[in-house]
Structure formats: C-alpha cells, structure tokens
C-alpha cells in the first residue's frame, strides 16, 4: 500500500485537569482525543463529524502542530511531525495550512489583505517583493476577489469575503493539506454553497487534500471522500462517504442522521432522540463510551470496548452490534 499524504496513528491528547491556587492538585485528565487513527490521501477530503466537545478541534490543533500529543503520531508523507527540527517544521508549515471557523477572528484587523495573504510567503522569504505581490494578485483572483482588495483592511469585507481571504492566505504557500475547521458554519446559508463549491474547485485545480471538520452532515456529504464520526474523543465509524450515507451502522451516527430535518415537511424520520448529556470526558463510561445513551445497549457494551471493525469493504464501525462478518 502506498503511503497516504497524512497518517494519524494512535493519537492521544489528554489535558491535565487541575484545581487549587497554591499547589495545583491533579483532578484527573480530560481525554480530549483518545487513540484515533485515520489517513488522508493526496487530493482527497476527509470529513470529521461529531458534536461539540468530541475532540474534533483538538485533533485539528494536533495536526496543525499547535498542540503536542500525549502519545501517538501524526505523519506527513511518512515523516512524524512532532519533535521535528526547526528547519523541518518550517517546511511542514508550508505544507499544512488552515482555515478556521470564525472569519471575524481569523483576520488581523490591523493588517491589509495583501499582508495577511502573503504572511506565510514573507516569513519563509519565498521570493522578491514583486513576486509576492504577483502571487497575492493571483490568489485573490483564484478565490473570487479582485486584486485591488489587497490594499484594503478586513473590516471592509463581509463574512463570506473574509472566508475567501482566509482561504487565499491558506493557499499562498501551495500546501498539500488544508485543515478546514468548520469553514462555513459561521456564514449565512446563502453563502455556504458558494464557499463549498469554491473549495471543491480549488481541490480539483491544486490537488490539495482537506481535513474538513464539520457538524453539518450535508456539508460533509457534499465535500468528503471519506468520513469519520467522532464521539467523546474516539472514532466510532469511519467509511467512504457514500457507504456511510447509504448504510449508517453505528447507533450514534444513526442518531446524528435522525437529528437532521427531512427534505420535506411531510416526511417522517425514524427519530432516535438521545437521552441525557454527553458524559464528561474527565470520566468517560467504561466499555463502549456510547453505552450510557445508546438505544440498542447490550450487557457487554459496558464491559468491553468495541474495536473498530471492518463490516464492509472500507467501512469501519466500533460497535458490538456488528461482530466481524
């Protein structure tokens, strides 16, 4: 098997939960990300779905080298990214970029659009000033803005335009992977499709891979080649998007799908309403982490942690309902 662009191996991130002013007392660990594995192929999109607090954003921070993992590895083209030398980290920065959720917070209000977009180029001394200006012009056109916008400041732009600017700045260093952390959830519904289609066009043109973090299933279905569903720091279902949407297997994924409004008001969903709150990641349930809220709970669910098993080609599920075929 050829090495994928990005491989995440047994990745864990625990945050120490401390109390007390003078002597910090360790109150246990928040297992934000607990033993996850996935791969992203060149030019493809992996959708990462889950409700808030399930570890999606922590995963993205680990991949962006903004946090260090407790254990496990993130490998870009076979090379582990944590514990790299400074030189290697600089190359990694050029290869992996990001677009965040909130376009009002992701652009420095005191910098011109041109400076924002060219930041990664300036830092790496990518080229002469004229070359960088040229590149900024091309990028602005590529994301559907005008070259004159380079002189303006962020407050002159709308949310959708700001997200285009953020995308241009992510594209500047010709990255191989862009982490899209809820790229459209802060935007008006009317703008979302435009941005998503822009992302798709750019993927086709530049052959860039995306890690798309979202809670909106329609977004993932539209964009992703592979989809992973996270619950309490773990991946519970991981499959090609088409396979996942055609044949939902894990009860948690089913619950997520049933929470989506049907296409027509007269249609009825087989609704699965989950009881209770998400358990605290400080003290996750024993066995399957979902067993406290699962409508199909069985005795062994609280005893034994179900491994991710392949139920169909490429379709992985962590649930005792699906013993190995």
């Amino acid at each position: 098997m050829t090495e994928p662009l990005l491989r995440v191996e047994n990745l864990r991130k625990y945050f120490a939960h401390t109390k007390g002013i003078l002597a910090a007392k360790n109150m246990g660990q928040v297992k934000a990300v607990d033993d996850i594995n996935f791969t992203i192929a060149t030019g493809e999109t992996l959708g990462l779905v889950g409700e808030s607090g399930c570890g999606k954003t922590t995963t993205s921070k680990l991949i962006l080298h903004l946090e260090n993992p407790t254990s496990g590895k993130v490998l870009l083209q076979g090379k582990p990214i944590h514990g790299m030398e400074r030189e290697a980290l600089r190359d990694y920065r050029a290869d992996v970029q990001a677009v965040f959720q909130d376009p009002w917070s992701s652009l420095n209000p005191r910098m011109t659009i041109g400076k924002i977009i060219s930041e990664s180029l300036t830092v790496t001394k990518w080229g002469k000033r004229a070359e960088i200006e040229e590149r900024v012009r091309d990028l602005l056109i590529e994301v559907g803005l005008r070259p004159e916008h380079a002189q303006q400041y962020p407050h002159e732009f709308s949310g959708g335009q700001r997200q285009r600017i953020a995308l241009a700045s992510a594209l500047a260093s010709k990255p191989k992977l862009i982490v899209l952390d809820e790229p459209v959830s802060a935007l008006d519904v009317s703008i979302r499709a435009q941005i998503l289609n822009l992302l798709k066009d750019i993927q086709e043109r530049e052959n860039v891979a995306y890690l798309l973090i979202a809670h909106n299933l329609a977004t993932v279905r539209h964009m992703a080649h592979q989809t992973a569903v996270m619950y309490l720091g773990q991946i519970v279902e991981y499959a090609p998007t088409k396979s996942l949407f055609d044949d939902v297997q894990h009860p948690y994924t089913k619950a997520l799908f049933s929470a989506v409004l049907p296409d027509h008001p007269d249609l009825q969903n087989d609704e699965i309403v989950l009881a209770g709150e998400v358990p605290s990641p400080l003290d996750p349930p024993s066995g399957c982490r979902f067993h406290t809220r699962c409508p199909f709970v069985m005795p062994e669910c609280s005893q034994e942690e179900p491994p991710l098993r392949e139920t169909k080609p490429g379709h992985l599920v962590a649930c005792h309902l699906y013993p190995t075929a």
Partner: protein
Amino acid sequence: MRNLPWIPLTIISVMLFMGIFAPFLTSYSPIDQSLPDKLLPPFWEEGGSIKHLFGTDIFGRDVLTRLYHGARVSLIVTALALLVGGGVGLVIGIVSGYVGGRLDSLLMRIVDAALAFPTILFALLLAVTMGQGLRTIVIAISLLLWARFARVVRGEVLAVKERDYVALAKVHGCSPARIMATHILPNVLNTFMVLLTLHVGVVIVAEASLSFLGAGIPPPTPSWGLMVAEGRGKISSAWWLSLIPGVAITLVVLAFNLFGDWLRDRLDPKLRQL
C-alpha cells in the same frame, strides 16, 4: 468632527502653546529677580497692574512668565516619563502576556512589588542619592508608571492572543517575536494610547508633588509644583502665588483625563457610533 471634547482640547492646546513658545510670550525672565517689584498682586486686585497680569512672587518674578516656563518643564517630564515608563511597561506587558507560564508569574510578581512600593519615598531616596534634577524625577516617575502599563497591557494581550489570527500566524510559520510585533502589538496600541492620555495627569501631579516636596526640579527653574510650594508660606497674604499654579495643575490634569475618557470611548468599537 462632531462630539470632539472641545473644552479639554482647548485647555491642552493652551498648555502646549505655553510650554513650546514660553520664551516668546513674555519679556520677563522666569529666573532673574527684581526685588523692587516683589509681591505685586494680580491686575484685578488693588495695587495690581497690567504689567504683571498674575502678579509677582517674593523675588519680584512675574508669575505668568513662570507659569509659561513651568508648563515647559511639566511637558518635558511628562513626555520623558511616558516614553520610558510607558515603553518599558508596554514591552514587558506584551512579553509577559504572550509568553506566559513562569516568566509571566515572575514578571507579574515584580509588578506587584513595584505597585506596592511608595513612589514618593523612593523619589526622595533617589533625590538624596543621585541629586535633584530632571533625570531623577523621570526615573522616579517611570518606576511608578511601567508597572501600571505592564499590568493593563498584559491583560489585553491575554485576550488578543486567543484570537484565531494568532493561531493562524503560527500555522503560517511566524516566530514568537514576529507574532508579538505584527499581531499582538498593533492590536493593543488602542489600549496603550488611552493609558498614555490617562497617565498624563498622573505624571503632572507626581512631578508637582515631588517638586513640592523638594525632590523634583531644583529652584530657581520654575515648575508648577515648586511654585505652589514656594507660595505656601505666604498663602494668607499673597494667595496668588500658590493658587494660580494650583489651578493650572487642576485644569490640565482634568483636561487630560477627560480627553483620555473620550479617547477610550472613541477607540472601543463596542461604544463607537458609526
């Protein structure tokens, strides 16, 4: 420009004008004595004359002339103290807030210590060891200012560094120094400007207090605080000696504080009316 604070701006402009053009505004010397003319009252009092609008002091020096030159001293002290104290406070606040961790704890404990220290006492100590003068007074006031600036700027940095553009700057490959210079600094400058204007009054009062106590600018150079001090022995017979510089200090401090308040409202986007 509507809603400009005209009254504070006028007072501040008059003071700047007095300080900058002091030698050209009057034909009298602020230092040379003229004993025959001593203790003349202001022009509206009995015995006063137009020649000395605000009267003369015990050495026959024109009070208005000394007021002009005193404004100049206050301006120089204020500018230097804000530059040194404010600048040091700004840098330490940014580094402390952005780097965080142990360095932050250490720097903030030093700030606590600096804020707990009695400035006046320290200035008197400095005056005794280093001698009176501009340098002593600027150092003494800077030692008070830097801690206040560092504390407030650090708080602002803690908020700014959580913004997404700072995380993105790291993803773009910026070094910590670059992030502090291009992302943190420009976004705390508003707060810094407001702090500067609000502390002009503090510096003027501090300079006046120190000069009043004899730890400031040495006589015969006129300083508003020194003028109040020199006149206090004659307060019952020649009230204008202390009262006129006292009123000047009050007006200028009030004007800078009002201007600072206005600037804070103006620069806070939440309060701004577009």
